[in-house]
């Protein structure tokens, strides 16, 4: 597929926002309450950052639409479409997140209940986002449980890394716990993403040029796709890069999203350096952009079988 930057930013930004909120609410559950003045400020600040991230993701998604003014219609087919469910789950999560943040800002007592609902919304959003890709069964690289596991783990990893960096400024008592979570989820993300890379490397495409045109002969080559200019079919479904470039992006994201942040987090935690922890998040987010680009680009759409040769 040809990765769209709107989709890359949407999925990475909301993933980090969900992960950050889950980290904040985890701290609240663990007894880090709004009673202390500093704690309340930190939770509110974190909630606002998570809102900004998810809002940025929502904004990015509009750039994917040909007719953004009709975007409201996309909530109508939730009975059948995972995309529609995602379109509902994202604002619901943002709404819960806003109420939870506002609850802390106003000192309301019901933040635990609000937060619990927001947790359910965040998990539902992880599921919906992943299912948008898993449910396209022709794209065998996407149609795997790994897609859901990776989206969730990478969201949690980037959210926890961000929480660590924020805690270094607003809640020093949480830095070590958040740092441990960030290391854990980044490591888990590295394992599951590597496993999914290994799985995708072994995929045997179910569709071949033989099944595409229904002629059972081992030797079939396309001589003409029927036109010499470009078309939607030649633009949307192939990234247009060489296999070598794809491999470089793969190593870049393995380094940027996992290895470097792990090192930066470890050094940052050991030396108690807020700057290094912030750098860890920036590097990891950039790495995740590359990871998402690769995830989208790697999917090999069977329609490409019909567009192999110009003439």
């Amino acid at each position: 597929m040809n990765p769209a930057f709107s989709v890359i930013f949407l999925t990475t930004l909301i993933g980090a926002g969900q992960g950050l909120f889950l980290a904040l609410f985890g701290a609240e559950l663990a007894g880090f309450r709004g009673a202390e003045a500093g704690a309340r400020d930190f939770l509110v600040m974190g909630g606002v950052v998570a809102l900004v991230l998810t809002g940025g993701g929502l904004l990015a998604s509009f750039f994917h639409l040909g007719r953004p003014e009709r975007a409201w219609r996309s909530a109508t087919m939730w009975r059948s479409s995972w995309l529609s469910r995602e379109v509902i789950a994202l604002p619901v999560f943002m709404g819960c997140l806003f109420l939870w943040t506002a609850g802390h800002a106003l000192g309301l007592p019901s933040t635990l209940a609000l937060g619990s609902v927001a947790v359910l919304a965040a998990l539902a959003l992880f599921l919906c986002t992943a299912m948008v890709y898993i449910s396209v069964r022709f794209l065998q690289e996407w149609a795997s449980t790994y897609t859901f596991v990776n989206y969730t783990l990478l969201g949690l990893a980037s959210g926890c890394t961000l929480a660590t960096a924020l805690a270094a400024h607003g809640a020093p008592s949480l830095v070590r716990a958040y740092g441990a979570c960030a290391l854990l989820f980044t490591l888990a993300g590295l394992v599951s993403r590597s496993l999914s890379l290994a799985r995708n490397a072994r995929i045997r495409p179910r569709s071949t040029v033989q099944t595409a045109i229904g002629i059972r002969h081992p030797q079939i080559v396309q001589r003409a796709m029927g036109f010499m200019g470009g078309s939607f079919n030649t633009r949307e479904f192939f990234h247009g890069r060489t296999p070598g470039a794809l491999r470089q992006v793969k190593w870049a994201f393995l380094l940027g999203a996992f290895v470097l942040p792990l090192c930066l987090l470890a050094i940052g935690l050991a030396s108690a350096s807020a700057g290094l922890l912030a750098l860890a998040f920036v590097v990891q987010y950039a790495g995740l952009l590359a990871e998402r680009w690769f995830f989208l680009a790697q999917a090999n759409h069977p329609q490409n079988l019909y567009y192999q040769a110009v003439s």
Partner: protein
Amino acid sequence: MTQLALVIDLNVCVGCHACVTSCKQWNTSGSAGPLVDDQPYGKDPSGTFFNRVQTFEVGEYPHTQTVHFPKSCLHCEDPPCVPVCPTGASYKRKEDGIVLVDYDKCIGCKYCSWACPYGAREFDEDRKVMTKCTLCVDRVTDKALPEPERKPACVLACPANARLFGDVHDPESAVSTAIRERGGYALMPEWNTRPANHYLPRQRTGMTIHAEDLVRVDNPLKIDGKQPELPQQGAGREDYAT
């Protein structure tokens, strides 16, 4: 239930692209607005088409066959592009099984095109909505047209009669007969999309001539004894055919 569909005879398609141009002409002139043509005479032309004719070479030179392969929306009976649409703009008509896009509801998210393994859908860069073959729904249902003209533009244009149109759920229709008797098949059966459109395979062309085929058993000259007798006598092969 009616399921309108095309049956495309690969045995006679000559790859002339008449179906492509007639499709473009009809569908760019309709009330839904023109199909985009971006820089048609420029350096990098691009445009939206609902139908393409592609060419494949089967076998190894010199034992090759050139197969011209027309491809448009297959109007699947279980269309994977329809349930994924978040707005309901993509739908399959109950009355005749045509898969359509409501251009007024489409938000142009392109998700349906991802969900079509055949690449049948093309995004219109001018109207910013997804477009696809309508099976000329505005022609085939137009009661003002004389009955023989209520067919898709591509079917009417085909000079080789390689495109048949009809109801594949009616076992007596010409398309059902062709599918049944000539080995009609569906594309990418592995995805269980159950395409309504079918393709008729190439046929081996050839004939076997028997010696007796060259001789008329009832040759009057022979009967009258005016021509020497040939070795073949009595009833021939064809006399047992029925």
